[in-house]
């Protein structure tokens, strides 16, 4: 087929315009589609979601494992074989390393040896959302620190920013290491950061976070701005602590360690 230079340029030009218009349309459509999203009727709402973990009610190893498994199973959290690649949304750590600086040599052994349940604190003043260069991690109006796996560029600035080690990076493709994938929740690819989301997808359907549901009342979830909420009433009755409060991040996860019964 013969084609002179002029014809080639004309065709090439038209093709470029066509691609441009098509691309712009797709872009506009995507915008419209996202603005059509509306909350469902059964959605749980709050001004400021928060969690209280009453560690006195966690007695056996099984109590911990039950809530951890509930979370990791429904969110397709992989079990990576190499500890360097570990991904965890909710896990346990001892008192000394959960609350560095608050340890003294004379704390009762039952507290020293007590596993503490750790997860993202959904800080009011979150350093991770402050440092993210693409708003892939961001604060929702209800206080939840959300994570967009499809926008994250994998720079890991948020991991450097988080003072609580709550964030995990997919160093390798996690898909192979998810035993029983839950099709209801997105599977992550390699190269993005993930963490606990306070089960935003469950709140949308009117359900409380999976860990809370499986905790048999040891974990409470509610609105911190509502003085009559379960969490507020519980916090008013029990002495609670938060991790690294001195950093001013204002964590929304409160711990009741125990001990006041002896006072």
């Amino acid at each position, binding site marked *: 087929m013969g084609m002179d230079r002029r014809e080639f340029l004309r065709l090439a030009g038209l093709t470029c315009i066509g691609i441009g218009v098509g691309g712009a349309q797709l872009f506009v459509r995507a915008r419209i589609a996202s603005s059509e999203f509306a909350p469902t009727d059964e959605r749980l709402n709050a001004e400021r979601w928060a969690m209280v973990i009453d560690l006195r009610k966690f007695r056996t190893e099984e109590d911990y494992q039950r809530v951890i498994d509930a979370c990791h199973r429904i969110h397709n959290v992989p079990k990576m074989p190499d500890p360097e690649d570990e991904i965890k949304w909710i896990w346990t750590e001892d008192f000394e390393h959960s609350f*560095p*600086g608050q340890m003294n040599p004379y704390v009762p052994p039952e507290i020293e040896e007590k596993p503490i349940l750790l997860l993202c604190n959904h800080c009011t003043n979150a350093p991770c959302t402050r440092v993210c260069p693409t708003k892939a991690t961001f604060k929702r109006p209800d206080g939840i620190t959300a994570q967009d796996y499809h926008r994250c560029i994998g720079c*890991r600035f948020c991991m*450097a920013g988080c*003072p609580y*080690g709550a964030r995990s990076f997919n160093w390798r493709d996690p898909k192979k290491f998810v035993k029983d994938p839950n099709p209801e929740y997105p599977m992550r690819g390699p190269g*993005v950061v993930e963490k606990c989301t306070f089960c935003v997808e469950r709140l949308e359907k009117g359900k409380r976070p999976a860990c809370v549901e499986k905790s048999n009342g040891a974990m409470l979830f509610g609105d911190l701005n509502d003085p009559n909420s379960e969490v507020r009433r519980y916090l008013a009755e029990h002495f609670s602590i938060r991790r690294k409060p001195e950093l001013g991040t204002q964590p929304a996860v409160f711990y009741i360690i125990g001990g006041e019964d002896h006072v």
Partner: protein
Amino acid sequence: MFEKALVGSKRYWTLIFVLLGIIFAGFITYLFQLKIGLGITGMSRDVSWGLYIGQFTFLVGVAASAVMIVIPYYLHNYKKFGRIVILGEFLAVAAVTMCLLFIFVDMGQPMRIFNVILHPTPRSILFWDAVVLSGYLLLNILIGWNTLHAEYKGAPPPKWIKPLIYISIPWAISIHTVTAFIYQGLPGRHFWLTAIMAARFLASAFSSGPALLLLLALLVRRYTSFDPGREQIQSVAKIVTYAMIVNFFFFLLELFTVGYSQIPGHLHPFKYLFFGLEGHGRLVPLMWISVLLAVFSIILLVIPPTRRNETTLTVAAASVFLSLWLDKGFGLIIGGFVPNPFERVFEYWPTLPETIITLGVWAVGFLVLTVLYKIVISVRESVGYEEVAH
């Protein structure tokens, strides 16, 4: 003017092909990383930045080579630096190119990198770093290329270049400040949470950049017919001396604050780096070598005869460079992550693929540098260099 880079001696082409070979090896390994993920590096959940970000941080400093020559030449009318100002600017071009590449190879999802522009986020320091680094790259390419081209044509440089040169001075300060801000504003990283970090970045940049420039100037003199000049090299040596002393002084300030206050969180990273913590001390030898080289180089630089003697000066400049490479390219980043936020020690060491990719990026930088320097030298060889008022 670019055609000057296409003809050269056998040695020039050998260098080009060796560099291309290293780049190729790095590129193939990068494809491997792209396929498997960043898991092929030594980084982990606990030490989530490593060699790549360390190199990026160190090379932002090397880019300061330009400004330390530009200030005396353009602001203080120190005409002698006219011979080497272009070498400083082109070294900055090569260094910033490497910086951007190191950020790129560190990305988990590099194909999404334009999200930084598509969703600009001014509260993120990384956004500003991308802005100042690409701006500095552009400034140095424009300034270097246009002034050299004017020299080639035997004409004065275009007038519009002057404001850009003046802008490039505070701009150079900004790249170090913003890069330091990436680290020094994070609430949970005690090692980085220090107001002197940006100042120390500047001091170490003003010593490592000119130190490399000094070594390159000596190489240029040995292997080409263009002589950057003995007095010029001595002036750069004095700049390195002052900056290195200030840098070491700032380091001592850090040590005092941490050592005298004895706040555990602040003390632990220093303990880990210099003495080892909980039986882990992989970085201890490197950190001591860095300190010893710093002291050794300062002694050589301060004593006038060893500074004037070009052999001992070469040793001193190489020591400065290596000392700061270990300090900023390695210790600074790892110290921020060890111990981790739980005060537990998990160590980091780069893997072989990670090292090959790192060498590949360095080779890209040296390729850019070689080609640009080749053009400079060929232009100077063909038209000769005259000191002109600017």
